[in-house]
């Protein structure tokens, strides 16, 4: 516990350091239009926070991005499992995943706008960004499973559930955690970018776009801070809770 407090204290100090740097730079530039001060950004957050549409926008964007994230994570995991079992599927999916990974997110957004409505755009984009990350990470995890342990499980006729619990899960878990960590960051960045271009009503993206359009730099910073907080908070929750649930489920005796 003491260690946790020390680490949290250190992180808080680092955060304060960078906020001070930001404040000093803002003072030097002395133009709120170019670089607003941390205090005015904080005040703006409180101001826009009084508005109901602020919370509706956050809710809408958050739900869509998280939906895309989980779809990407789950479908990526399922495809990784199928690829692990079937060489044909692996050969078919491998170039597709590489193409998705290499395609600029802006190309996807513009292309996807032709196919689907602006409202669903961030779901699709977040999904597309997370899918190859989840697929490649989990496939790599599956490939790193010790084949000698699998042979041992065959000799001793260990049932599938016990095999997952003892051999598959401990090896693949770090790769799942890595996929979640990378994928969450990607999904928030790409999802918001999709909203800025698609501009669905009552979303974080449209607020960002309007702030830029009307040169409301304080609002632009305020919304950016909100996005960062949302992403960090959600990553913290998912990274703490999800592995715990998975571990508990897998350690439950059957």
């Amino acid at each position, binding site marked *: 516990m003491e260690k946790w407090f020390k680490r949290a204290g250190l992180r808080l100090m680092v955060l304060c350091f960078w906020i001070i740097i930001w404040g000093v730079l803002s003072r030097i530039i002395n133009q709120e239009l170019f670089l607003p001060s941390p205090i005015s950004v904080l005040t703006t957050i409180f101001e826009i926070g009084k508005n109901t549409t602020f919370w509706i926008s956050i809710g809408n964007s958050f739900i869509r991005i998280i939906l895309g994230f989980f779809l990407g994570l789950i479908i990526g995991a399922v495809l990784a499992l199928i690829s692990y079992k079937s060489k044909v599927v692996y050969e078919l999916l491998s170039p597709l995943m590489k193409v998705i990974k290499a395609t600029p997110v802006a190309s996807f957004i513009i292309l996807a706008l032709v196919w689907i409505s602006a409202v669903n755009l961030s779901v699709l984009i977040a999904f597309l960004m997370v899918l190859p990350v989840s697929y490649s990470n989990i496939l790599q995890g599956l490939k790193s499973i010790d084949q000698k342990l699998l042979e*041992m499980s065959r000799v001793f*006729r260990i049932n599938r559930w016990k095999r997952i619990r003892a051999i598959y899960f401990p090896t693949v878990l770090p790769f799942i955690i890595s996929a979640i960590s990378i994928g969450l960051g990607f999904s928030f960045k790409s999802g918001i970018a999709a909203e800025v271009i698609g501009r669905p009503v009552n979303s974080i993206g449209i607020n960002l776009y309007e702030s830029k359009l009307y040169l409301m730099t304080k609002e632009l910073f305020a919304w950016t801070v909100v996005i960062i907080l949302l992403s960090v908070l959600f990553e913290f929750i998912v990274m703490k809770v999800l592995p715990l649930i998975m571990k508990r489920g897998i350690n439950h005796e059957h």
Partner: protein
Amino acid sequence: MSIKMKNICKSFNGQQVLSDVSMSFSEGKITCIMGASGVGKTTLINILMGLWEADSGEITGINNKKISAVFQEDRLIEHWDAIKNILLVCSGNVTDEIVKKHLEDIGLVDYEGKPVRALSGGMRRRVAIVRAILSEYDILFMDEPFKGLDEKLKNQVVNYVRENTKGKTLIVITHDRDEVAMLGGELVYLNSRQ
């Protein structure tokens, strides 16, 4: 009914490891396989266990038999403790107490609550042996099971194996004639030209 291998051939990347190997193993008895390093002893029992397929040849008398094994490497779940590793392969009627009794019989102390990766090589070997013996089996394969054990400990472990495998079919790979004598089994040689 004995286990019979007839004209077994196996090669890896064009290199012949087993060439026309024929052998038989008596049911309910201990058979020790000896042979020089690299002659294909492990390949032979991996084929018998059904882990690898022979390129040609025939095996009879092993179908539908339950097998158990002490592998050349221990093949334990590294982050689990000894008891959990053993219970993983056992049927429901093997309890913690039974496992502890067997570990005591094989001379293992100071293992509780520790992941097996924290145990010494000799301790891990004994965990692998108890695991193999407590699982349900008709045939037990042991690939150099006493490797890494000092003489005094080896006697204790060999006695433990003999006591707990009476009436079962044992196929043991060894390099040590003394082990064959201690186990009291039949001896077969695997030659490189076989």
